């Protein structure tokens, strides 16, 4: 039976989740996962621009070797806050809380997540954490670095450490609840016929991410709590003056914060699987390998935290174990990259904006991932740790990787979410600008790092200036490139071309209901009888040629 045949396009209805109810209360008290996704979308976009402003300040200061634009304490606060905002208030929630919330129920054929009220609660917790953090920033800011190392954070810093820590602590519960919701939903609410290996790879990625949310976030919560008490009440497990061990803080901190980087990149990898498959009309090569790689990354990611501590006075033998495991965790990511590439072989590739972001991800993530190997290699890490090499490496993963995936997903599912298409030409243009600007910003930083430029430096020796100037030039281009989608996406919500249920002609469950979807997602719960990414049943494939024009009815 043809996958497409079972799909009866729903009678187009004017009522969808956006206009089913009006009024502030219907949004602030909603239980609809789609509306909650939009609440998150607005919040994280706001924080993205705050974090971006901090980034601009950093890059402007670093144009010259002297610390002449900002005072050093101000600069220290700026880079700290750039990190905190971007990591905790943008990247970690980005794909899970927006695209994940919106799409997980739809892609598995459910009406909502397992716990809709907890979903809403998680947004309110996010907002509460955000407000506490904003208070801390406005009251005077925090200057410990986003890593909050003791004893500087517990005893020596004169900034709003406790308030910021509280904000992040609260925010962590938002993550935990989202992850819990996803795990339960994926286990118990799949539509009939939607077996595990028929799930879109985006769901596998969200599942793996949720495992990390649930297992890792509580550890940072308790770490922040202990640090805060130490600072407030002079009780100590971290400050050596109180009998404590500062390296213990690093172990506890990185036990979460390393898996956190997989929280940031796994969802993006899930999006990329969707983009590559759907915009080349071919199932992902090695589907099971990609699915299990997501799980492997989640599990192995918990075993490598010590690679942030190779020079911290950790034992040499512990360093070796962590180095070995860090190389091991790179392998599943490599497997994914090869499988995505192989998917494109003998496929049918369209150059839509989402595909461009997907391709950009593969290229930049390869660079980011391989430069991670430099840092996993002990001897080289001794030289490179705490230099700009590390900064470049993680920006390649988080911006070149995670952010590109996010933008690609946002564009891909934009018609489903809003019922409108974004302007394609502008989309492609912006993708190109972002790609160029990004590389120009961060490639020179690899060189500056190996040359010895330390990170978190407000002023630096003059021989590093050329790299910093290139980097700032790139950042300007990157910033401009980010502004463009911000403008046209908002514009499209009012003036974009209206999209129908399946503007891209794809088999995924989310495309089998109208755009925007009704509140209950599906008129009737679908029964799934086809495999993932089955563009047409195997016996009816023609490599080149027209189909019988069914798509025109859709």
């Amino acid at each position, binding site marked *: 039976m043809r996958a497409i045949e079972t799909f009866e396009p729903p009678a187009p209805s004017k009522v969808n989740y956006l206009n089913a109810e009006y009024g502030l209360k219907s949004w602030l008290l909603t239980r609809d996962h789609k509306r909650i996704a939009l609440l998150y979308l607005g919040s994280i976009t706001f924080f993205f621009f705050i974090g971006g402003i901090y980034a601009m300040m950093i890059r402007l200061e670093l144009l010259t070797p002297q610390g002449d634009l900002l005072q050093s304490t101000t600069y220290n606060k700026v880079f700290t806050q750039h990190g905190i905002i971007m990591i905790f208030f943008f990247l970690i929630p980005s794909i899970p809380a927006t695209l994940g919330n919106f799409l997980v129920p739809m892609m598995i054929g459910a009406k*909502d997540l397992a716990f809709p009220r907890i979903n809403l609660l998680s947004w309110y917790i996010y907002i509460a954490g955000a407000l506490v953090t904003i208070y801390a920033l406005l009251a005077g800011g925090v200057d410990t670095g986003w890593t909050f190392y003791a004893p500087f954070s517990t005893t020596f810093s004169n900034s709003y450490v406790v308030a910021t820590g509280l904000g992040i602590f609260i925010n962590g519960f938002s993550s935990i609840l989202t992850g819990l919701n996803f795990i339960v939903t994926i286990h118990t609410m799949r539509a009939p016929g939607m077996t595990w290996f028929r799930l879109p790879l985006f769901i596998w990625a969200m599942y793996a991410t949720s495992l990390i949310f649930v297992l890792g976030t*509580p550890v940072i*919560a308790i770490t922040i709590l202990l640090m805060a008490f130490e600072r407030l*009440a002079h009780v100590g*497990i971290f400050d050596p003056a109180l*009998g404590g061990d500062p390296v213990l803080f690093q172990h*506890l901190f990185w036990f979460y914060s390393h898996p956190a980087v997989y929280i940031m990149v796994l969802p993006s990898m899930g999006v990329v699987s969707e983009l590559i498959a759907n915009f080349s009309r071919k199932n992902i090569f090695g589907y099971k390998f990609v699915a299990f790689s997501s799980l492997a990354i989640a599990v192995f990611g918990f075993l490598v935290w010590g690679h942030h501590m190779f020079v911290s006075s950790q034992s040499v033998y512990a360093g070796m174990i962590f180095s070995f495991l860090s190389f091991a965790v790179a392998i599943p990511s490599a497997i994914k990259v090869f499988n995505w590439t192989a998917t494109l072989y003998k496929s049918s590739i369209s150059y839509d904006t989402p595909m461009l972001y997907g391709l950009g991800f593969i290229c930049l993530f390869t660079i980011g991932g391989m430069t991670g190997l430099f840092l996993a290699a002990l001897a080289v890490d001794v030289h490179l740790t705490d230099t700009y090499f590390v900064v470049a490496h993680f920006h390649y993963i988080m911006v070149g990787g995670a952010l590109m995936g996010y933008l690609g997903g946002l564009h891909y599912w934009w018609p489903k979410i809003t019922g409108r298409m974004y302007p394609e030409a502008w989309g492609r243009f912006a993708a190109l600008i972002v790609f160029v600007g990004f590389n120009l910003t961060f490639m020179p930083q690899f060189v500056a790092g190996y040359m010895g430029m330390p990170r978190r430096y407000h002023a630096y020796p003059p021989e590093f200036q050329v790299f910093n100037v290139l980097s700032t030039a790139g950042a300007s281009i990157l910033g401009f490139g980010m502004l463009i989608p911000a403008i046209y996406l908002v514009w499209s919500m009012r003036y974009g071309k209206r999209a129908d249920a399946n503007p891209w002609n794809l088999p995924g469950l989310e495309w089998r209901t109208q755009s925007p979807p009704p509140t209950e997602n599906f008129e*009737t719960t679908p*029964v799934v009888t086809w495999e993932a990414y089955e563009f047409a049943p195997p016996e009816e494939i023609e490599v080149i040629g027209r189909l019988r024009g069914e798509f025109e009815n859709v």
Partner: protein
Amino acid sequence: MAESYTTTKHAEGHPALQHHFENMEQQREAGTLGMWVFLVTEIMFFGGMFLAYTLYRSKYPAAFASASNHLDITLGAANTGVLILSSFTMALAVYGTQVGKRKLQLFCLALTIVLGLTFLGIKAVEYKDKYVDSLIPGTLIPGHPFSPAVQVPGESFDEHKLHLLPGATVKNVEMFYWIYFAMTGMHAVHMIIGVGLLSFLLVFSVKRRYGPEYHNPIEVTGLYWHFVDIVWIFLFPLLYLLGRHLEHGG
């Protein structure tokens, strides 16, 4: 997982069935799995403190033994008994709900609450004793710093004074007490939340909301309660029973 789900537009059925679930069975499965996942997060949350405890106990064994000896083992053991009993009454409450024995359900829920409050009461007594002996670490209570009286060798035994084993220092004893308060304090917070949840359940049970067709909330709260009990079962020996063989009396 693959049971026969109906595919009707709106699942008719039990008034407690939420609209996004297909049927009560799915709702119950989701609720139970959700609570298990939540308990895993709690394990990770407490885990950080258990790690700190393990580390510093191996670093300062004499101080930890001295401080542990100074805790009131009678009260601690009493609390352990109270909690274990409360887990039993909780399990009975769940059973009572499942089979429709309403009296058993109500009585056991109420008894569990009472036992929980008893635990918290005994804890409060212990905390007060620490306050009186100036064993509250750091400046947790401003103006009342950590300054216990230390037993001088040769003096007659004074239960309010800290007896330091060879190698123990007051500073490291303070570390023990911080870990003690952090762990038992966090545990107590979870107990309070548990008692709160049970109170809601009791009120709703009186209103006949739960019975054999719908008892998942009581089941999952039972899971939570048992977890909080298990955490205490780990805390008690680790905090109260160190080095008892080195010390006579208690």
